[in-house]
């Protein structure tokens, strides 16, 4: 169980990093950032996995006493909830900048933006 999630997260992070480094189109780079982000979220949730645990929601299965033996760690899940929202904000800002850059030069190719290159 945790093996599958761990492999998925590592592969997603590597694909995202490859996209960020190799792509020339700004929109494709933003897709790379999103993939990297998703991989990190899967990784953080995986770290909180407890063998044989169920979702951290109290119901008939877990009862309300001695819950700690039956559930997975809820703290990484709460952190990932925060991370997803921040990731959304960062992606929206990147898209806004990409839109402005396109309006400036009518191009989304990163090689056309040389002002800060040295």
């Amino acid at each position, binding site marked *: 169980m945790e093996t599958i999630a761990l492999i998925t997260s590592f592969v997603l992070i590597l694909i995202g990093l*490859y996209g960020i480094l190799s792509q020339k189109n700004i929109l494709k780079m933003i897709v790379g950032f999103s993939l990297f982000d998703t991989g990190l979220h899967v990784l953080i949730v995986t770290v909180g996995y407890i063998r044989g645990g169920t979702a951290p929601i*109290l119901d008939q299965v877990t009862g309300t006493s001695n819950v*700690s033996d039956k559930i997975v760690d*809820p703290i990484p899940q709460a952190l990932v*909830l925060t991370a997803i*929202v*921040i990731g959304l904000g960062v992606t929206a800002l990147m898209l*806004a900048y990409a839109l402005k850059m396109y309006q400036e030069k009518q191009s989304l190719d990163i090689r056309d933006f040389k002002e800060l290159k040295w």
Partner: protein
Amino acid sequence: MIRNFFIILIIAGLAGVFVSLFWEFGASDTLTPLATHYANNGAAEVGAPNLVTSIVVTYRGLDTLGEVTILFLVAAIISFFLKVEKKGQKMAPPRVSSEIILTASKLLVPVVLVLGIYVFVNGHLTPGGGFQGGAIIATAFVLLLMANPRFELNHRIIAAVESVSGMAFVLVGVLGILLAGGFLDNKILPLGHFGKLFSAGAIPIIYSLVGLKVGSELSNILSNFQDVQKDEL
């Protein structure tokens, strides 16, 4: 060529780090002490069946306030950044949307709105919560914008919903200092019957406010992107 070589080198290096991490990793069998406390006392202290919600809204409520603030900042920066001057709107008539999406938007928008409200009102009982419900509400506006490119959100209503819910969130937190144990304490209202809709103190109120705020902020971001595109037509 040398560039590609370096990219492959970096990816291979990171993959090597990951492989060694992968062999080292084993899922643990017991929770950390902090998580154990949350798991065993969460039902009695907070009264919410969804432990993730009780951590997000009550134990770590200040983080959530910061998170909402960051989202607000993003919405403000984007609306400042993509501001369109209302110069002589030279809009070409946009292409009419297809019959399928027009019918679907009429049918689905109320249903999606109700689903979003359900998700954030039940955030303390079932998986879901304010952020998820707000995102679902924003998808209803995406559907409206796709069906009718000329559709304009009423910015005044959006701004009013956003600021009122944000202020009320902080106000509920301050009430926690005055009436209960501290900032954003949920015991300003009785904890009620465990597992019922009106239980867990102030959590349903806080999550409904967060849902309204997130929904209006995301809709605001979307309509800003839409306005810029309109300008380019």
